[in-house]
């Protein structure tokens, strides 16, 4: 589903710091600290208009955690995918909740399962409330590769001895 994006829009994206990997399927790669700039370009420019926050998925590749954002533009009727790489040791990406309120819970889920710190997120100050799926007092982030749960001792709460 190729889509023709105006040349100056692409130029604005590159100048904002996004590396356009594939023009037809609109795949971008952005450094973490440039995310707010690129996203406001994506959201605000009338000829882009990616105002629908579709999806956010984190993947642990061992040394880096890749965050894969996807937005949809009702005007162009096409998707843009933005991938952001952060080191697994201290994963942190600026939040985009201020631009798309819909991303709020997606970011909370990524923090909960992968430990990616979204600075600027309304709940980031209090990690217990930031967790969305796991109990507030859970230790560790289960979807990471280096997650080794040890039996919490209490059969009703916390990680169990996996048989």
């Amino acid at each position: 589903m190729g889509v023709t994006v105006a040349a100056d829009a692409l130029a604005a994206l590159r100048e904002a710091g996004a590396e356009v990997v594939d023009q037809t399927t609109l795949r971008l790669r952005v450094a973490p600290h440039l995310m707010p700039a690129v996203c406001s370009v994506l959201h605000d420019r009338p000829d882009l208009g990616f105002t629908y926050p579709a999806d956010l998925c984190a993947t642990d590749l061992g040394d880096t955690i890749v965050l894969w954002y996807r937005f949809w533009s009702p005007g162009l009727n096409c998707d843009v995918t933005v991938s952001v790489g952060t080191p697994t040791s201290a994963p942190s990406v600026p939040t985009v909740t201020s631009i798309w309120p819909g991303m709020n819970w997606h970011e909370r889920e990524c923090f909960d399962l992968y430990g990616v710190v979204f600075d600027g997120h309304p709940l980031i100050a209090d990690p217990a409330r930031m967790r969305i799926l796991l109990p507030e007092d859970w230790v560790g982030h289960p979807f990471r590769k280096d997650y080794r749960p040890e039996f919490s001792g209490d059969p009703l709460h916390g990680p169990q001895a996996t048989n």
Partner: protein
Amino acid sequence: MATEVVELNSPNMTVNLGPQHPSTHGVLRLVVELDGEYVQSCEPVIGYLHRGLERMLAARPYRQLVPFTDRLDYLASLNCNLAISQTIERLASIEVPERAQYIRVLLCELNRIASHLVFLGTFASDLGATTAFLYAFRERERILDLLESVTGARLTYNWIRPGGVPADLPEGFAEATRAFIAGFLPEIRDYERLLTGNPIFRARCDGVGVISREDALAYGASGPVARGSGLDFDLRRTEPYDAYDRLEFDVPVFTQGDCMARYKVRVEEMRQSARIVEQSLRDMPQGDVATKLPKVFRPPVGDAYSRTESPRGELSVYMRSDGSPNPERVHVRAPSFVHLSMLPMLLRGVKLADVIAILGSLDTVLGEVDR
């Protein structure tokens, strides 16, 4: 025994609606701060049904993923099977035969009618009209019997696989479906006379829980929730998959954005789904129903995503493969998860009875919220 009086420091009373409550439709807990009957703030707490499904999927070969997706949106599990099968097909660029595409559309639309009937029943009984619940489930039973005759199961079908469908439709299925559709359309007229025409139902739904078009777009609402707020966006039309581009049906869109609009969208969608079922029965071509997959199925390295229109909204699956027989990462974007994130914004300053109406109108299923 003197009961000591505990001084309430704040005038508001915090009430836990859930996780075990008659109308949260699943294990959802709403920590609601009430001032009398008015809701001051509401914070949804989810995760009671979190099974770490995405991590389980990453530990199994591709062919074994489909039965797990039945447990995502258990009211429309055929749509979930379709979502993950389509993503696997895009990942390994597998071609699905024509007849399998029509069978998939047929079964997904029957599943959509059944899911909307569950919505109709539970939404009406949340507002007090318990009789509509019984009528809706009487029709749903007949759909479940139809789907049982095809797939063998009543709720968790595991019937749409990467490459097509495991077996063809049994003979006598077409006549049974046509008989069902003929009997079903007058029933929808009955529901509308029972509910839509009722002034109390209108009073409980009109202007309640309004989602503006901008909010719907900014929060990523999809499906009937988006189409109730004026967003004309239905994946079966904007990004047609399977055989949807060869079938004509119209997409109901209302602009009020309140509970009534969402209810009307779903009731109208039931009629459209019935139309689609008839058309797909009529022009279903002959031919085989699946393409053979290799014994050990190893898709190429890379990632793929596919978007499908489940009865609740945009259900899309993102999958990343590293060449091994197991997927490296599977992520499911669930519409109910996004719709629940709108609750704090929707429920501010609303009355307790409306909390139930709004939650019912979002039609969330906690299986796909918690994954």
